[in-house]
């Protein structure tokens, strides 16, 4: 199978690389099939719709932020990132994470029932390394 993406050019992939989100992403409930792309030198994963190739969500693996974040067995947990030309304004949605089981290649988005996590959490802080 082939997918023409804006960012990665034309990708060729087997059907077993498709990540299925049967309920879609909130606001994009009609899009259910995705490729999860990670390039070596980048911090973000990219969840690229197969049905609409121009729709792509940058994802951040939330484990890197916090060990106590709600986990689901056998699932990776990602936050959808809102990019910005000014990196200090890049935010990640911790309120509605995307859980993906990479063995089953299936996932879902969940809105967490707590006020603990912000929908637009600043991903970066300046000055600390």
């Amino acid at each position: 199978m082939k997918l023409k993406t804006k960012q990665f050019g034309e990708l060729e992939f087997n059907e077993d690389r498709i990540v299925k989100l049967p309920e879609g992403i909130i606001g994009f409930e009609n899009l259910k099939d995705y490729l999860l792309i990670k390039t070596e030198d980048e911090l973000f994963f990219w969840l690229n719709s197969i049905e609409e190739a121009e729709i792509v969500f940058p994802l951040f693996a939330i484990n890197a932020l916090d060990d106590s974040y709600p986990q689901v067995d056998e699932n990776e947990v990602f936050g959808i990132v809102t990019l910005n030309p000014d990196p200090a304004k890049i935010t990640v949605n911790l309120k509605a994470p995307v859980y993906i089981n990479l063995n089953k290649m299936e996932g879902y988005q969940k809105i967490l029932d707590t006020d603990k996590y912000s929908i637009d959490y600043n991903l970066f802080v300046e000055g600390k390394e």
Partner: protein
Amino acid sequence: MLILSRKTDELIRINSNIVVKIIAISDSQVKIGIDAPSDIVVLRGEIYEKVKSNTIEAAKQGAQNPNIKLPKLAVNKLKTPNE
């Protein structure tokens, strides 16, 4: 839309497994209790709308900034309340 009138403590049943109960009524607010299986998603409407606009903006920015160069910024670690 189905519109029903209910008094305090009266119920609405949806299928066999969802019960909505009117707990209290005041001038401008009702308190509602909902019993539903854990796989039923119950949300305040405005939270869903907030998440939706965030996601739409994320998709827009994702398409516009495909090769964003990140300077050396540290990741903003979450602080849990007991830290």
